[in-house]
């Protein structure tokens, strides 16, 4: 096999297309436990595939996979959650996210630090949401957590309450209802987390908030919540 340096430009492109792009897709799909349909939206009418003769040019041939630019991501997350005023923590998370969030949203600019920053930001905004919803004393007036009793522990969250919570967040964050597989995955992961030992000196009610934070952060920082 030829040394990479000895290859022609088209050969190098072919090699990168057949190895690099699938790797990017793999990292995106494995590195993120989302159930999104289709990661890279090609705009080519008759693409022969990423390793075919007309290799995919991410810059010109694809749409971005995420909301672009951290300022806009913050505004989007606020719109999705309805959190009007950000806490100092959330502002700090957004500031920290600034250099890590892709400007273009193209698949080849999405990386692990970006996902961590998005998750971090999503978690902080979720915490603001939980704080705001908890302050609403009449449960029916809450937008997301109207079946949650904040005075009880996490084990008091019923299966129906979990279903309702996931449905409401799926609609607002993802713009669609959750699939059965997604609901099962979210609930089983939450249940698994709840079987682990609780933090020392942690009240049972704090555990309820943590359970909500867990679910909210997972859903708000998923690809479907930030995708373009």
């Amino acid at each position, binding site marked *: 096999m030829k040394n990479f340096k000895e290859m022609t430009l088209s050969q190098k492109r072919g090699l990168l297309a057949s190895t690099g792009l699938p790797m990017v897709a793999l990292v995106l799909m494995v590195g993120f436990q989302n159930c999104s349909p289709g990661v890279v939206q090609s705009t080519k009418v008759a693409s022969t595939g990423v390793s075919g003769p007309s290799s995919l040019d991410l810059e010109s041939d694809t749409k971005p996979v995420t909301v672009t630019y951290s300022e806009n991501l913050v505004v989007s997350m606020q719109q999705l959650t309805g959190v009007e005023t950000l806490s100092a923590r959330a502002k700090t998370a957004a*500031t920290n996210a600034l*250099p890590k969030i892709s400007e273009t949203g193209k698949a080849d600019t999405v990386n692990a630090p970006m996902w961590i920053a998005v998750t971090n930001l999503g978690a902080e905004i979720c915490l603001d949401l939980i704080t705001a919803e908890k302050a609403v004393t009449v449960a029916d007036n809450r*937008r997301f957590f109207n079946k949650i009793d904040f005075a009880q522990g996490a084990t008091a969250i019923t299966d129906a309450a979990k279903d309702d919570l996931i449905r409401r967040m799926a609609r*607002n964050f993802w713009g669609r209802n959750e699939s059965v597989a997604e609901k099962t995955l979210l609930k089983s992961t939450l249940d698994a987390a709840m079987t682990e030992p609780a933090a020392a000196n942690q009240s049972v009610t704090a555990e309820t908030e*943590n359970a909500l934070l867990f679910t909210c952060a997972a859903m708000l920082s998923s690809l479907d919540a930030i995708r373009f």
Partner: protein
Amino acid sequence: MMKTSRFDTRLGESRSRIVSSTSVKMLLSMLSIVAASKANAQNITPIPAVRPDPNGAISAERTRAQKIFQALTAVRVPIDDARIVQMEALIRQGNLRGAAAVASKDPLFLDIQIRDTAREMSDRDETVRAPMSDFVATFIGIVRDSDTTSAKEMLTGNFYYRVDPAIIATLPTNATVRQDEAADILTSNNHYADIVSRGLSPQAILIRQSPQRISQRANNIETPVDHPDPAGLMTTRSFTGAHAVAGTNRRMVEYSFREFMCLPMTEFADADAPDDRVARDVTRTPSGSVNLYQSRCKACHGQMDGFRGAFAFLDFTNNAARIGTNVVNKMNRNQTEFPQGYVTTDNSVVNYATLGKNVDQLGWRSALTGNGMASFGKMMADSRAFSRCMVRRAFKRVCRRSPLTQEEQVVRSLADQFEIDGYHMRHMFENVAIQPQCVQ
């Protein structure tokens, strides 16, 4: 030692990465927009607390409405948001333009999407991270006032946008917007930086100010005067600051074409163009080769130096644009490189980009000669390339990709419609968003 919460463990590193950034100030300022007090009507669009409808159906029209809204505003909103529901109803009636208009009338369209479009055009890096400036504010103002302002005024207008003094008067003294004309608008960006740091919504607070102004400096004193040669965005402080500082003012030509015609030099270079305006600082024998000059250097300089005369009186010094009545030194520097070259003696403009492929891709439709930046601006504004460029910019922002080669006809059709609509920027963005190639 306190144990880590089991949920924190599962969430992994969700809150642990903190990296300092030089851009921290900028984002913190921007964030104050969304955290701004509800008391002032000029703050950014309110964030509605949308109550999800767990049992409601999500139609294809609703989903499309959400996508169009996001395309036009660059912001994702809940599927049950009242704006999306309204757009869904219009799409069901077959009124796609009406649906798009709901999004384009939302403050987010101007405050986010149009702001970012302008930011990319405003500085040398062509990035959305560029600061708020007179260029960005004026661009937002022109789009906001599309009903009464033609986009051609981006290159011909004798005005700029600033914060309405009446609104500034209502702001608390510890959170005001600095507005000294010389100190905060003409020789610094203070006025526009304060829009961000005070958390104000640009679309709600900007007011058109005419005429354009520049600052004259004498004995270290800055005195604002009317701009003698205004050309819309091209003569804003930020654009001249980015491209007229130092150099030879060729960058003004290069970036005017990049931003308003969407053409980098390489795409309209033409070795057949005359070179009688090529200045003395351009060697005619690069690497000892006349042929290289004839085939490469001349292709850009022949046209660029013809246009460059427009900026003969312009300089950017001491943080401000300066326009005198004499040719600035940098126009004729390095005169020994090729002493027989063209000597700039006035601000005349000659358009040599009129041959070959440039006939079609530039599509000039007005006088090919003139004097000063205003005539250069008018030349560009009247061209077909300008209207197509605005469509391309909208397409790239709204559809999040550049138009493909096979979509050139779509671009041209949209540009034709843009011109028929009187260069109405908001309507043009709407037309782009409803294209099947853009949002499905």
